[in-house]
């Protein structure tokens, strides 16, 4: 139960793995932020990619901090425990993701309107003048690899843990490797004198990121204002919630069933029925419920 200390037993191992993965995420993000920082020089295009990658630190940090709170038991000040810290972190991550998209779009559009021609100079190394673009290309190529791998590893974990914060971080990682590809192409095509290529690629990619950010934001807000559990893929009521609703309606015909989501858990309320004697939430038959641990409590309002 979420009011007790620690995570429910069925997700403990996955939670541990998720924390470890997010620490790795922070570490690798810092390495490519540093690589891009060293290579960027005065390039505006690189600066944008760099700032986005910094914003990419927000979701993993939100998860790591949130997970520490979530483990705490309920206390005098927080009777229901800290389940919703995950939801709060999800909102923060969604805002960060949407911000990355908007930032990228704004930057691309202004540089297209201003017709910004980017200058990338050379550096003399052992008597040879080497175009700094080569270093930028190397840094951008490197910056695509960690987010692609980590994002790929995050998806199954986010599914099993029903963790939308990690899911949003996977979307953030997708945004990061896509902007990495855009940045790579931008520098490469700049070398051919196509000054607009970078901005056009960035603008197209930003639309996808804004869409993902908007979807996440909608679900995060719905969760914080006690909406029914939403699917990140846009479905109104997610599978687990439908199964719980169906089971409770079958058990208590004529009663209304209200559902809300507190972090990764679902709390239900049965309106118009009293709690049967000896009601045990763990013995309630629920068909097609993948994650039994998600049903945190059932309250009755006769």
């Amino acid at each position: 139960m979420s009011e007790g200390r620690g995570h429910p037993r069925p997700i403990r191992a996955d939670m541990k793995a998720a924390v470890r993965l997010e620490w790795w995420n922070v570490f690798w993000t810092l390495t490519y932020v540093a690589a891009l920082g060293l290579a960027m020089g005065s390039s505006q295009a690189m600066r944008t990619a760099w700032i986005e990658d910094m914003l990419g630190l927000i979701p993993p940090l939100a998860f790591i901090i949130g997970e520490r709170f979530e483990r705490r038991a309920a206390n005098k000040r927080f009777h229901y425990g800290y389940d919703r810290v995950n939801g709060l972190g999800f909102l923060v991550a969604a805002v960060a993701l949407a911000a990355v998209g908007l930032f990228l779009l704004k930057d691309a559009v202004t540089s297209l309107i201003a017709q910004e021609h980017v200058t990338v100079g050379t550096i003399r190394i052992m008597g040879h003048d080497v175009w700094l673009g080569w270093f930028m290309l190397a840094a951008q190529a490197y910056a695509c690899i960690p987010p692609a791998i980590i994002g790929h590893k995050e998806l199954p974990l986010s599914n099993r843990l029903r963790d939308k914060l990690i899911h949003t971080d996977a979307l953030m990682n997708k945004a990061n490797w896509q902007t990495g590809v855009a940045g790579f192409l931008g520098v490469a095509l700049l070398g051919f004198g196509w000054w607009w290529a970078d901005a056009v690629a960035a603008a197209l990619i930003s639309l996808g990121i804004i869409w993902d950010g908007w979807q996440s934001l909608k679900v995060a807000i719905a969760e914080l204002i006690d909406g029914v559990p939403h699917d990140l893929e846009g479905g109104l009521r997610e599978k687990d919630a439908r199964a719980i609703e169906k089971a409770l309606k079958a058990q208590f015909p004529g009663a209304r069933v209200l559902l809300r989501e507190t972090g990764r858990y679902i709390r239900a309320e049965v309106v118009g029925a009293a709690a049967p004697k000896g009601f045990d939430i763990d013995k309630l038959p629920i068909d097609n419920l993948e994650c039994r641990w998600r049903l945190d409590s059932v309250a009755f309002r006769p």
Partner: protein
Amino acid sequence: MLWGENRRASALRFPAILVCLALAACGPYPRDVSGTLDDIEQGGRFRVGLADLRAEDGPAAQAFVRRVEQATGAKAEIEAGHLEGQLARLEEGQLDLVIGELAEDTPWAPSVAIVEPLSKRREGKRVLGLSPVAANGENRWVALLEREVRDSAGEGGS
């Protein structure tokens, strides 16, 4: 799902784009956005604006222009003027090169490509560099100017 599909599509797209890049890679790289160096080499001339130069900087600027003439095989058409006006004309493509004294933190920095200086001096808190300046995005032309600045320093230029 969404993520996986995009990833696969991009994974296919990426090598395809690289192949296109490789095919397009015949010819000089990096190139100029507005083709400054090509025009100079084909036209046999380039337009230089000397901007508010002090008398003692004149010879260094002239020597640098000579070097660029040799490197490009083109003739310099030199005109003197005030710094702001010359930089504005450079931005508009009416000049190919401006040589003038600019502070290290000049507000012109994002608008034009300021090459490393031929010489530096201190004026109060500021460090002023006698710098060649090119239009932004002319990366091949900028690379040539950078090379000539470095070579002239190596040969005992100030």
